[in-house]
């Protein structure tokens, strides 16, 4: 796998209502890299800051502090219209609610073709329409859909349209913000397969944001687990599942219901006592520590050894 970081996130912070009673640290000093061509999963429960992170990376919101370097350039400095257009061409988003993400008053053709016109990638209406038809085909829709309004489609079809729009600009990076959680099970699988297929065809990098661990595990190369604005654990998806080190990850994993009555009957849930893992903000010994190779856990320096042992234990268990 290619190991060039396409996006580097350094000490990213987003605070709402700073220094007021209702201050919320939605994203609290997180750092990670996303490598070219990988699918990076970002998992967390509601309010964990995962969606905010996605919006910050998309420049849909302004960060409070930190730095994001995309394709070697810091995105904060992109202010001029020209810079912004160049930036947006390379990074696109797929949204959670398939209906809400499509403008109800625009035809499919305008929705998908609009970005092409904005970025002046087409010179004529005819050319634009041709490209829209191609894109529709690419996401598995008939081109006869082009003149219709989003309202007329099912959720899965709408999500395909949303994907076509994201693909129109041939971006390098796609942020999928809960792109499948609003869909029915059978449709989720369709969309996930489509995304995987497109990735192979177009050399894309995904940031896959979700609360559903099973799907994230299935699609991602690496996964970061977020809670309360912080990344608690970061590892390859296999490691996250097989060698979950942080108790929060463990509790998340134990809570996922499996479509298997027998294992449900026998399962043990792990409770997560948050108070035990809340640290003093100013302690310099707090941070993401690499426990094993490419496996990071948010903890105190003194706890590293304990986690190392735990990792060892769990790995043993797998081999046995």
């Amino acid at each position: 796998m290619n190991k060039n970081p396409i996006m580097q996130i350094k000490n990213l912070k987003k605070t709402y209502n700073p220094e007021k009673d209702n201050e919320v640290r939605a994203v609290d000093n997180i750092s990670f890299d996303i490598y070219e061509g990988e699918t990076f999963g970002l998992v967390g429960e509601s309010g964990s800051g995962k969606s905010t992170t996605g919006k910050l990376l998309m420049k849909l919101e302004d960060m409070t502090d930190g730095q994001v370097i995309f394709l070697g350039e810091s995105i904060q400095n992109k202010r001029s219209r020209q810079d912004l257009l160049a930036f947006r061409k390379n990074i696109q988003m797929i949204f959670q609610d398939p209906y809400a993400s499509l403008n109800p008053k625009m035809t499919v053709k305008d929705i998908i073709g609009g970005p092409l016109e904005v970025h002046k990638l087409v010179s004529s209406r005819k050319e634009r329409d041709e490209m829209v038809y191609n894109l529709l085909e690419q996401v598995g829709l008939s081109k006869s859909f082009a003149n219709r309004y989003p309202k007329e489609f099912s959720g899965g079809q709408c999500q395909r349209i949303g994907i076509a729009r994201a693909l129109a600009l041939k971006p390098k990076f796609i942020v999928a913000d809960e792109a499948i959680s609003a869909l029915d099970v059978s449709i989720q699988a369709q969309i996930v397969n489509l995304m995987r297929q497109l990735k192979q065809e177009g050399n894309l990098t995904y940031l896959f944001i979700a609360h559903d661990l099973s799907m994230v595990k299935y699609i991602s190369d690496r996964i970061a687990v977020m809670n309360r604005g912080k990344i608690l654990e970061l590892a390859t998806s296999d490691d996250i599942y097989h060698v979950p080190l942080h108790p929060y990850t463990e509790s998340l994993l134990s809570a996922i219901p499996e479509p298997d009555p027998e294992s449900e009957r026998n399962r043990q849930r792990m409770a997560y006592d948050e108070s035990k893992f809340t640290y003093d903000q100013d302690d310099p010994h707090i941070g993401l520590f690499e426990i094993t190779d490419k496996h990071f856990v948010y903890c105190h320096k003194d706890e590293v050894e304990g986690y190392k042992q735990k990792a060892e234990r769990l790995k043993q268990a797998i081999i046995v």
Partner: protein
Amino acid sequence: MEEQLKFNPVSQKKIIEMEQLSQIQGISQNDDSYTKTIIKRFLKDKIATVSLIVFVLLTLIAIFAPVLAPYNPNQTVGFFEDAPSSEFLLGTDEVGRDVLSRLIYGARVSLTVGVLSVAIYAVIGTTLGLLSGFLGGFWDSAIMRLTEVFMAFPYFMVILVIVSLIGPSIWTVTFVIGILGWPMLCRLVRGEVMKVKKADYVQAAISSGYHTFQIAFKHIFPNVLTLILVNMTFGIATSIITEASLSFLGVGVQPPTASWGNMMSNAQSLTVLANQYWRWLPAGLMVLISVLSVNFLGDGLRRAIDGEVK
């Protein structure tokens, strides 16, 4: 044997064909565009349809007033205060002008004031509302303070003062109602824009690189347009009444120009009220009919858009 044939598996290719067919059938149920759907729903609403017909008729009357009116509305053509007769179908007024002709020309004034003033404030209110809601921050609070200032004015007083400042005429009345009417709409649009702004499709438009103004006018505006339209129809009704009230107070459309409002202000005289019904009743009914029709029109439109089942 034939029975058994039914249980032959279907080829994958055929299933895929059938699937696509059913997808296309699934959406082809409703081949109408959004606008067409609304029109269809609207036409199912009887009262709204009748109102639309009435309103169209009124508009036609206003447009073809010179053809329809039997006499010059501003010319003394008969005896003063004559009761309706075959010569003057609705009688004559205090200086011998034909009431019917004045009524027909009055439609022009009332509808012009109604429609034009609302058009003016719709443009102002929508633009400011869009900007305020979309830009937020400083512009938002500046525009909101401005609406507060405008809403804190006693509406009628400002109209009265401005009208006497510029001199009362159909254009003054139109202009003043237009200039003063926008804050409510502005707030409405702003509220809606704030709602729409959070919608994912606007976020999508931003990430697609659309320019702020393109987003405001191309993506957000169509989604608040229906709301604005509904509000505008109610606004037209209000404007017609406001013109009539101003004319009643003597600062509306000025004689000799006929407006329903100043015709109706004849009813200020008890003699006229009691004995000369033709000098106020037709004008009063016209105001009532036009306002009712516009109101029902707006209500029907709202229902059609909301998809409220009738």
